[in-house]
């Protein structure tokens, strides 16, 4: 899954540690999500989207063509 976390964080001039603090997770988790090594759980994904005042699909997008109902 791709995400725009790094861009959104940079737009707000937040450090990884600052974002981690706002999400109540570790900096390691923020880094792993940003680099695509870890896909967050649905509750955490919703928390991230809410923090940036966006829809979840505006922050996270599925890799490739898969991910839409039509493609199934």
């Amino acid at each position: 899954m791709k995400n725009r976390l790094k861009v959104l964080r940079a737009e707000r001039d937040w450090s990884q540690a600052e974002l981690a603090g706002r999400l109540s997770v570790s900096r390691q988790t923020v880094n792993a999500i940003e680099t695509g090594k870890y896909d967050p759980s649905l509750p955490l994904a919703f928390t991230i989207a809410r923090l940036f005042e966006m829809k979840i699909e505006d922050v996270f997008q599925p890799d490739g063509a898969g991910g839409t109902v039509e493609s199934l």
Partner: protein
Amino acid sequence: MTEKSRSSTLFSFGCAGKASRESLAATVVLCVVLIGNAFVGLRLGPVVARWTVLVVIAAAIWFVREHIRNLRQHDELQIRIYFEGLAWGSLGVFLLAMLWPSLQRAELVGRFEPEFVTIGLLVGFCTGYVNALRRYR
């Protein structure tokens, strides 16, 4: 920073808050177990041995309680890393126990000692934990 993110340094390696509390618990338990075992080995009689064992069990229960309390403070990725360590440890020991009779018949190993379980769990856990930690770094 929140409590959860502050205790982000994984399991006992940190120096703040709950992590240091767990480190203290681990140290106390280790001391109690070592001293307790040495005490029982002195053959001071069954009554003393029973009381010593009770103290060791109480310390172990306290450690487990502290450890789980500390675990609940961690976020989902940290818990995932921890579980991967546990999976390596438990599956490693399970496979070792399953394969041991065959290895014994092939005269590659001797008797299965109870200490092998502890060693296997520790080695497996550390391997899986470090492996997962590096993957998500």
